[in-house]
């Protein structure tokens, strides 16, 4: 059965992203499922980045290291990924870089350099050549590509100067690697066409480059056995990142107003909304969304709140630092009861931290954001499909309950591209709603009418005079400091919160995956979902039956159901990408249930299914309390 995991690495700005895209498209065309993500520095050009991809016949749920194929477009990549190779794998590198020394690479992190030097000292010095020996000893097959001469050939064949086609090295490396993995030229050509089809000047040399690269590999290493096509052919499929699908959910879910202030890894979501902000005719309807870049995140959320008060379906989108800046306005959203969706794309913190890398450290901050008793809905998506539908749900909830809703996502989801089938995104049963929206309020309208469920009819501004206030207010919205008014309004908001907790079905709040009878239970939230599901299959193969309670709505917290689901578990394991065990903390706070075993990943890299397998085995078989996993380059 086909199940290939590969890495292609090179300098930022060196075409890693497009190589990854081509690879994704190629393997999809070849009939496989695929998942792929880009790891990169907070840098525009020159620092190391890599695309990490897995394709398989089964659902492509997770990445893993070691991989079956490393394509190192430069010396830094060769050094960086020399540990990532498995036995029986290919290690494609630039043969011309053979003598390059690690100490001469300015862009490399100094402590990585140290580690490379240490590892390669026994091999006679830290050169690419030694790295090749190193991987060879691990069982990998090194494949040195003479990039310079290949480029020369491309230049000759396309009759273009070297400088004009120098950028095709990414495709040269990729094509060579894919060929070794058994992918035929036609598929790669198709992948290239899908990527560059609308830019003929780029398309041509890349096709040539791919062919020459493959010919070189064939002539030097023999003709490779072609991989049989995967089963997923003969239909339309979508390749989209987490950023993309959230944007899609917003656009189709009726968003009319989106603000943002650029920040990784959120901005690509906002940009994708912006790209689609205006479409004349979609099924006879028009898409028209005002997208505005704010001067900062304070403005971003306050703009959205203002727009929502004026009747727009509004959202904003940010990451940790921006979210921190939104705290005061979130508190206003709770007090003034204004709907707004905040897509919070977590990344490695604290503070600026590592802006372009993975972390799940903002759960408790999201829940307790804003001073002064400010409950809000927090929903965390586990994968692309959930992220798409949650984006719509979040807008519904925001308007139904007139409250800020935090849609919790992360860098891994943001930049991970998944393949999606049409039925997976079926929206025909999705309802859009605005709750007690009042479009023709009478003159007696009171913005904060006290109701049994705590929810007041909400009219947009412009219909009849009304007051909206961040101060404690009476039913009209008029400021009041009266103790009785105050207590009534606190009680109203508390009732509203109970309504929210009651109205969101338990099955949307948490999901039990796997065998309910399993004695080993994993709990987690967010983008670890598919990785854990993938690990569970392998664990079962290894004789460990697990189940997995995925927490989707973290606030209001589904305490009773969680208790029920977890009551039978004998080994309870929390899997989290933060060091405070934030979900475990929350679970115990709400249910008293202590999570005695923890799997943590805090090195700002994605979680791999192999790591979950390793850690759970260590816990189940050796009784480990806490396992920190550290994979990834």
């Amino acid at each position, binding site marked *: 059965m086909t199940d290939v995991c590969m890495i292609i690495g090179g300098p930022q700005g060196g075409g890693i992203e497009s190589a990854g895209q081509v690879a994704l498209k190629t393997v*999809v*065309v070849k009939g496989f499922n695929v998942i792929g993500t880009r790891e990169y520095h907070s840098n525009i050009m020159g620092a190391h980045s890599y695309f990490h991809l897995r394709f398989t016949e089964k659902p492509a749920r997770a990445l893993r290291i070691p991989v079956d194929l490393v394509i190192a477009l430069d010396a830094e990549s060769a050094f960086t990924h020399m540990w990532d190779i498995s036995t029986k794998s290919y290690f494609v590198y630039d043969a011309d870089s053979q003598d390059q020394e690690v100490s001469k690479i300015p862009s490399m992190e100094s402590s990585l350099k140290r580690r490379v030097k240490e590892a390669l000292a026994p091999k006679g010095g830290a050169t690419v050549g030694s790295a090749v020996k190193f991987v060879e000893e691990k069982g990998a097959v090194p494949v040195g590509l003479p990039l310079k001469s290949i480029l020369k050939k491309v230049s000759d064949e396309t009759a273009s100067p070297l400088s004009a086609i120098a950028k095709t090295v990414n495709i040269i490396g990729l094509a060579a690697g894919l060929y070794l993995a058994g992918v035929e030229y036609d598929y790669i050509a198709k992948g290239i066409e899908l990527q560059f089809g609308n830019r003929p000047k780029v398309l041509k040399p890349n096709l040539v480059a791919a062919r020459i690269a493959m010919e070189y590999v064939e002539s030097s290493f023999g003709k490779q056995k072609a991989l049989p096509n995967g089963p997923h052919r*003969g239909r*339309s*499929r*979508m390749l989209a990142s987490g950023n993309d699908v959230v944007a*899609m959910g917003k*656009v*189709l879910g*009726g968003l*009319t*107003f989106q603000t943002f202030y650029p920040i990784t890894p959120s901005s690509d979501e906002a940009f994708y909304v912006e790209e*689609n902000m*205006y479409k*004349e005719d*979609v*099924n006879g*309807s*028009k*898409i*028209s*969304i*005002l997208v*505005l870049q*704010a*001067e900062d995140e*304070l403005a971003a959320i*306050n*703009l*959205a709140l*203002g*727009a929502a*008060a*004026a*009747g*727009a*379906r*509004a959202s904003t989108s940010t990451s940790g630092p921006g979210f921190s800046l939104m705290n005061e*306005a979130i508190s*206003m959203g709770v007090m*003034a009861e204004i709907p707004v969706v905040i897509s919070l794309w977590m990344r490695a913190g604290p503070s600026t931290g590592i802006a372009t890398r993975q972390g799940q450290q903002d759960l408790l901050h999201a829940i307790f954001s804003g001073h002064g008793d400010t409950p809000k809905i927090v929903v965390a998506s586990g994968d692309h499909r959930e992220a*798409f539908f949650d984006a*719509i749900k979040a807008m519904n909830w925001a308007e139904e309950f007139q409250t800020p809703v935090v849609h919790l996502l992360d860098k891994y989801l943001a930049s991970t591209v998944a393949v999606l089938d*049409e039925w997976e*995104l079926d*929206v025909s049963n999705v309802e*859009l*709603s*605005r709750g007690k929206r009042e479009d023709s309020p009478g003159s007696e309208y009171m913005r904060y009418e006290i109701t049994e469920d705590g929810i007041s009819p909400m009219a*947009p*501004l*412009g*219909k009849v*005079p009304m*007051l*909206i206030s*961040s*101060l404690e207010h009476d039913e009209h919205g*008029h*400021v009041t400091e009266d103790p009785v008014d105050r207590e009534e309004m606190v009680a109203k908001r508390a009732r509203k919160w109970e309504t929210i907790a009651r109205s969101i079905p338990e099955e949307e709040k948490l999901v039990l995956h796997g065998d309910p009878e399993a004695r080993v239970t994993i709990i987690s939230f967010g983008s670890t979902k598919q990785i854990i599901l993938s690990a569970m299959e392998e664990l079962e193969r290894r004789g460990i039956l697990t189940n997995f309670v995925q927490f989707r709505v973290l606030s209001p917290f589904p305490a009773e159901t969680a208790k029920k689901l977890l009551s039978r578990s004998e080994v309870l394991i929390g899997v989290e990408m933060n060091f405070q065990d934030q979900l475990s903390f929350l679970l115990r706070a709400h249910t008293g249930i202590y999570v005695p075993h923890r799997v943590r990943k805090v090195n700002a890299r994605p979680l791999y299914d192999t790591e979950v397998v390793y850690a759970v085995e260590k816990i189940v078989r050796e009784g480990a309390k806490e396992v920190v996993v550290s994979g990834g380059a």
Partner: protein
Amino acid sequence: MARKWLDYKTDSWVQWCPGCGDFGILNAIYRALAELDIDPSNLVVVGGIGCSSRSVYYIKGNAIHTIHGRAIPVASGVKLANPELTVIVTGGDGDLLGIGGGHFVALGRRNIDIPILVYDNAVYGLTKGQAGPTLPAWIQTKSLPHPNVQGSLNPLLLAFAAGYTFIARGYAYHLNQLKDLIKAAIQHKGAALVDILQPCPTYNDFMTNEWYEKRIYYLSEDPSWDPVVRSPQEHKEKAPKMLEKMMEFDERIPLGIFYQNTYKETLEERFEKIMNGYLSSPPGKRPLGKRPIAHPFQVFKEKVIQV
């Protein structure tokens, strides 16, 4: 039948100290609204936090009492979501030029059609009289344990630098003139500043009514004064003189309209250019369907591959 100023008065108790300049401003607003005959249902007054910002409760219409310093982004959200509304910002110098200074600047760049009425008393009234961003250095008002060591900024120049297309200064106790300035600011299409010198008898014992009355005069006293620029060329020619006037703030303090740019587009107009129909069916008024209008595969075609 046209509305009267009293039609804009709410029955809320007005919480200001006796003699506060804010009363004058409020009255001028009532009158400006009445003369423009603005439908209260269509009016949105957005305030920050401060004595002045409480105005929102005293003007018949829609009100948003936001948080300190954020009136401008909230108001901008309202206006962009529904450009048919008349949106006015009322707030203090501390609110709009101190904590909200970044947004004050950003509004100029956008040129959204919102008049900003700064109740400029040079102190933080509601928090008991600390120095505001327009209090000159070395002045020691009542509440200060030491003279003000921070300098003051010039709101008019700031607005000009940021790109406001209407810049005026008024005086709280000159009801009629102030009313006219506010009216003009509302009528102006674009970001408008009216910096309103406002005595705070409770805390600002330096910039008192007497202090101001000795200094203020109207630009319009000079019959040749024409603050309107209708083209970049005219802008270039007139700006130096206008800036000179904006800088005058010592023994003489000019009031009136300093600058009005009638050719620069508003953000709303710009959005209409990139989103046909935006103005007629803006974000706040677009109806929500019962279901998504299409399947994502139909809409985001560039992401779809025929395998």
